C-alpha cells in the first residue's frame, strides 16, 4: 500500500482507496489534545490504520485536526445539515415524502415549516419543488428534512421554489457553485439578472426573467465543469453573444 507523504510538494494530494495515512502526519499538532476528526472518504480499518476509501483530494483543517477526502460523485448520500432540493412524491397526514436523489425518499414533517401549527400549515402537492435542510441522516434510516432554521425557527430561504427550472449536476460541481468566488456564476451575473438555489444533492434551480435566459444559464453551468478560467469566460461570452 502506497503510504502518503505529508510533504507539501504538490498542491493536490490525490488518494485512492487503500492508501494509508501516515500516523505521524495525522498528529502533527500535539496541542490539539490528540483528537482526530475523520470526514468523508476516510475510514479506520481492522488493522488500526486510517485508510482512504474514495478517490479524491486529501484535505486537512488544523482546527480540530480534521481530515477528509474531497471527491466527486453523482449519487447523493444524505448528510446532516446540508441544504438540498427535493421533489414532493407523496403525502400523508404527518409527512411529505420527498425525492432527494438518494437511495430512498426522505421524510419532511408537515410541521417542519416556519410558523406551522396543527391548524395553520403550508400545503404542498405532489410535484412541488422544495429547498430544505437535512435535519437527520443515518445510513440505516430514511433521511429527515425540515424547511426552517432549527435554532431560530425562521424559514431562512427554505421552502417551496416556484417557477424556474431544475438541472442535475455532479455533487462536486454543486459544491463548487456554492463558493462565493465561483467564476461561471460571476460571469453570468455580469450579463443576466437571475436567481438560483443550489442543493448539495446536485440539483440546481434557476429562475430568470425569460425562459431563454434560464436555459442559457443552465447550459453555462453544465458546460463549466471541466473548463479552466480562460475557457470558461470564452464559453459564457459566446453563449451571451448568441442570444
Amino acid at each position, binding site marked *: *500500500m*502506497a503510504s502518503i507523504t505529508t510533504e507539501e510538494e504538490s*498542491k*493536490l494530494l*490525490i488518494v*485512492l*482507496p*487503500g492508501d494509508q495515512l501516515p500516523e505521524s502526519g495525522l498528529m502533527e499538532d500535539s496541542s490539539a489534545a490528540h483528537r482526530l476528526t475523520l470526514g468523508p*472518504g476516510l*475510514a479506520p*480499518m481492522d488493522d488500526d490504520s486510517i*485508510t482512504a*476509501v*474514495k*478517490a*479524491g*483530494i486529501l484535505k486537512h483543517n488544523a482546527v480540530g485536526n480534521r481530515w477528509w477526502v474531497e*471527491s*466527486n*460523485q*453523482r*449519487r447523493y*448520500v444524505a448528510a446532516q445539515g446540508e441544504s438540498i432540493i427535493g421533489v414532493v412524491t407523496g403525502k400523508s397526514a404527518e409527512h411529505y415524502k420527498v425525492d432527494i436523489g*438518494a*437511495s*430512498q425518499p426522505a421524510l419532511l414533517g408537515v410541521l417542519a415549516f416556519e410558523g406551522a401549527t396543527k391548524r395553520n400549515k403550508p400545503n404542498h402537492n405532489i410535484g412541488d419543488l422544495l429547498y430544505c435542510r437535512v435535519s437527520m441522516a443515518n*445510513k*440505516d434510516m430514511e433521511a429527515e428534512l425540515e424547511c426552517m432554521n432549527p435554532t431560530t425557527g425562521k424559514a431562512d430561504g427554505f421552502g417551496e421554489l416556484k417557477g424556474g427550472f431544475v438541472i442535475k449536476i455532479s455533487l*462536486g460541481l454543486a459544491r*463548487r457553485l456554492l*463558493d462565493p468566488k465561483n*467564476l461561471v456564476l460571476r460571469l453570468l451575473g455580469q450579463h443576466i439578472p437571475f436567481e438560483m438555489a443550489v442543493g448539495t444533492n446536485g440539483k440546481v434551480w434557476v429562475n430568470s426573467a425569460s425562459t431563454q435566459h434560464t436555459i442559457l444559464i443552465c447550459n453555462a453551468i453544465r458546460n*463549466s*465543469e*471541466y*473548463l*479552466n*478560467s480562460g475557457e*470558461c469566460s470564452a464559453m459564457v461570452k459566446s453563449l451571451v453573444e448568441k442570444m
Partner: protein
Amino acid sequence: MSRLDRSRTSAHQLRPFFSSQNLLNRADGSAQFDFGGSSVMCSVVGPAEVKLRDEKLDKATIEVVVRPLVGLPGIKDKAREQAIRETLEPLILSGLHPRTSIQIVIQTMKDDGSILATAFNATILALLDAGIPLKSILGAVTCIVDSETNQILLDPTTQELANAKSTHTFVFDNKSSITSTDNKQQEDKESVDVATLYSDSTGLFSEEEYFECAQICYKAAQAIHGFIRTAVQKKLEKEQQQIDS
C-alpha cells in the same frame, strides 16, 4: 523471441492501455478500459433503491451484469458475472450503505483477448468514478503459457490465446506493495499470495509455471495500479483547475 502479436517485441510487454471515466450521462459512474484491441465499458448505478426481494439489512446488494460483444449472455458471461461479483464483494465497503443496491453492468466493446482482465480494470475505474467506498483498488492481468515454446506471454491477443497451453488471469489489490518493498530481494510466492484477489487458470500447467505466471502478472499489475492512479489524478486536476487559477 518474437510474438504472434507483431506490435510487441517482448513476452512480458502489455499492450498500450487506455481509459476514460464518466462517459455515460445517466449512470452514477462509468468507465472504459482498453488493452490494445480489447475494450470494455462498465457502468455503475448506486447506492440506489433496492428491490425488496434482494434487500440485505446490513449491507448493500451488489449485482453484476456481463453483456457479451454480440447476442445474448450465455454460460460464459454468467461465470464471469460470478467471478467479478465474488471478487468485488469483499472489496466494496457495502456495510456503509445498507439496504441499497449497487448495480454494475459490464459491456464488451471489442474483443481481442484478455477480456476478463480488461473487464476487472474497467469495473474498478467505474466504481472509483461512482464514488463507491472501497477497501482498495485492483489491477488485473492475463497471461498464457505458449504450447510450442513454453514461454509465458503477458496480455495475450485472441490469436495468441489459440496457441495457449494454459491461460491464467490474476487480480491483485494495491495493499501488497508494503510486503514487496520491505523485502525487495525475496519477492517470493508468499508476497504474491497476500495480494491475490482472484485467480483463474485453465489448461495444463505445473506448479512452477503457475507461480511464475503469478509473479510476472503481479509485476504487471503494479503498472496498472499506477495507470489507474494517473487516470484518477488527471480527472481530478481537470475538475479543480478553476479553483487553482
